[in-house]
């Protein structure tokens, strides 16, 4: 065979590698420049000035956000040479660049018909959200199921406002109003959760077929319709799902996102789940986000009396005789988790419980010990993996709260690191974990699966801001423990993982 016959193959196969010295130099220089660029960037993508917070009632937002996520998780790569100006693969970038979002949704809430339980009937619930990413403001009008009715399905209208360090919630059904003050780190985390996790974070591994199924003109604008059909592995079993997305090929405008499902593979009817109309970068006036006067409503507290509360505002609950506060949890790059928690019992002072503890060693012996974690279902309702995480001590902080009546209470927060008993990769987004606890109840030591906590996905460059920031906020001297750094935590989790394998 003549060499000329193999030109293509030979050129394709020809290989040369960079010398290890140059390899190191190139990567180090590039990383160094990245660090320099990062340091010179003003206000770190505006997180400090963005003050949007959507607190813990994530489910309502998640319902609609899930649609966006459903779309985002379903993107298909296609040949850019034949693609229109904007295709479905541009969607993450388009959403990432959004300054404001106005989303009007219709949500179908299904439940068995009380008269014919074998039939499903739907209640149609409207929802509207305004998100001002630049100025960190948020407002949502939604409908919540009324927990105070039995046998009859009833919903009441609720509103949530977030602006800076204050939040206002209105429950129109019971005509209640209450205010919250928000921890700086927590509101940045929640904003990150909303913006980053739902709109920006996408793992290529999760992307599957999305195909262009046609076009439609809406109000004079031509939209491509992108569709994906897939089977969703829910807690209830496999559920066929279909998501459609209207995207303007000329402007990148995302017009609509609709989702349907079937109750099972045998079901022949596509039932609507959510229909959303999305407006990106429309001007949102300040009046949309202004806290309203609710004169005829009962105020649980006032703006002035609103406090942050224990554990970055998470509050506390009882386990046995002790109060427990789950402050915050983070998923790190290697899949390990840091959870900050504290407990308080009048019978057992804790001053000495933390003395002499070593990073990577046993957890403190206190009235409630969270010795492990287990993944819970995600906001999308998928089946959680069967993995356990084992807790080890990382650090602790002490925070003394001074209340308005002058009373002081001190909380010790254990910052434990949880490492999976088997190999895991860090999820692209945050997720809920169930806590595995050991606690004293009526003189007995009991174990129980406790309340779930949402763990935020944190990347290397966010470690100091969020993890050390949270530790600082829950510390009397406003400083994080000095031995906690990203590298030291990564090294420690690796050591724990190795010891667990043994």
């Amino acid at each position, binding site marked *: 065979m003549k060499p000329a016959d193999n*030109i293509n193959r*030979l*050129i394709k196969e*020809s290989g040369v590698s*960079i010398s290890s010295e140059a390899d190191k130099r190139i990567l180090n220089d590039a990383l160094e420049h990245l660090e320099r660029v990062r340091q010179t960037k003003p206000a770190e993508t505006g997180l400090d000035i963005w003050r949007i917070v959507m607190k813990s009632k994530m489910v309502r937002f998640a319902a609609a956000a899930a649609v966006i996520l459903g779309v985002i998780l379903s993107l298909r790569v296609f040949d850019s040479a034949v693609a229109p100006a904007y295709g479905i693969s541009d969607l993450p970038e388009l959403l990432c660049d959004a300054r404001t979002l106005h989303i009007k949704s219709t949500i179908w809430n299904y439940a068995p018909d009380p008269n014919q339980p074998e039939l499903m009937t739907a209640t149609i619930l409207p929802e509207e959200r305004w998100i001002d990413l630049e100025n960190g403001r948020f407002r949502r009008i939604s409908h919540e199921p009324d927990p105070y009715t039995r046998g009859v399905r009833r919903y009441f209208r609720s509103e949530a406002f977030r602006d800076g360090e204050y939040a206002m919630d209105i429950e129109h059904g019971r005509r209640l109003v209450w205010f919250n003050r928000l921890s700086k780190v927590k509101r940045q985390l929640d904003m990150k959760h909303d913006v980053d996790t739902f709109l920006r974070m996408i793992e290529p591994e999760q992307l599957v077929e999305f195909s262009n199924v046609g076009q439609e003109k809406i109000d004079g604008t031509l939209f491509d319709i992108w569709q994906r059909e897939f089977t969703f592995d829910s807690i209830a079993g496999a559920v066929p799902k279909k998501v459609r997305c209207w995207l303007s090929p000329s402007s990148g405008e995302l017009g609509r996102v609709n989702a349907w499902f079937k109750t099972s593979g045998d079901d022949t009817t596509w039932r609507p789940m959510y229909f959303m109309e999305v407006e990106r970068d429309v001007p949102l006036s300040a009046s949309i986000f202004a806290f309203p006067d609710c004169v005829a409503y009962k105020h649980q507290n006032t703006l002035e009396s609103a406090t942050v509360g224990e554990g970055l505002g998470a509050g506390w609950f009882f386990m046995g005789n002790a109060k427990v506060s789950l402050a915050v949890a983070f998923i790190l790059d290697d899949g390990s988790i840091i959870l900050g928690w504290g407990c308080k019992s009048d019978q057992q002072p804790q001053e000495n419980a933390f003395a002499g503890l070593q990073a990577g060693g046993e957890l403190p012996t206190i009235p409630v010990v969270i010795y492990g974690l287990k993944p819970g279902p995600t906001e999308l309702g998928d089946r959680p993996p069967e993995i356990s995480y084992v807790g080890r001590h990382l650090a602790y902080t002490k925070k003394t709260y001074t209340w308005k009546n002058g009373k002081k209470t001190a909380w010790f927060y254990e910052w434990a690191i949880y490492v999976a008993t088997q190999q895991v990769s860090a999820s692209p987004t945050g997720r809920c974990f169930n806590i595995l606890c050991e606690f004293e109840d009526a003189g007995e030591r009991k174990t129980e699966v406790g309340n779930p906590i949402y763990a935020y996905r944190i990347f290397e460059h966010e470690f100091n801001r969020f993890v050390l920031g949270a530790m600082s906020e829950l510390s009397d001297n406003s400083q994080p423990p000095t031995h906690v750094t990203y590298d030291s935590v990564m090294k420690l989790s690796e050591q724990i993982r190795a010891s667990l394998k043994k």
Partner: protein
Amino acid sequence: MGLMEDKLLVQRCKRGSKEALRRIYEKYKNDLMVLAVALLNDTSAAEDVVHDVFVSFVQALEGFRLTGTLKGYLATCVANRARNVNRLRRSHTVALDEVEPIGADSNGAYESIACNEQLQQLSRAVAQLPCQQREVVVLHLRAGMKFRAIAKSQGISVNTAKSRYRYGMDKLRSILNSEAKK
């Protein structure tokens, strides 16, 4: 999958993720090195070009928007920088096209990659191609870039890119066939 993954990696890089930058570097460093060596015929100069391309990529991240493939973008950057290096060389020495092809016993970069006789012959033949043809051939075959993308990156028409490729391949065939006859 590749295009989407790259878009996400770029997004994360923009937000300062070192891990994302590492992934991009590891993913494309070898392809870019082969490309640079093919265009410059000098390992050391090729490493410098790859270095400059990655550093410039980081510096330009803020306003960067990925419209095609990342590999294509980086390959174009390598080709542009290699062209500049060749231009400078030409102004200081003689035209590169006039340089004698690098022999198998020389210290040229291709020696290190020519692990068998066919590859050695090919490396010598590629080195004899005029710069413009060499660029199109290598970008198309090694970097996997489409003629449309090559044409856009070089500011030429698609037909010109195709012609350069065809002439380049003809010349390669002719050189290799004549060597085979020897």
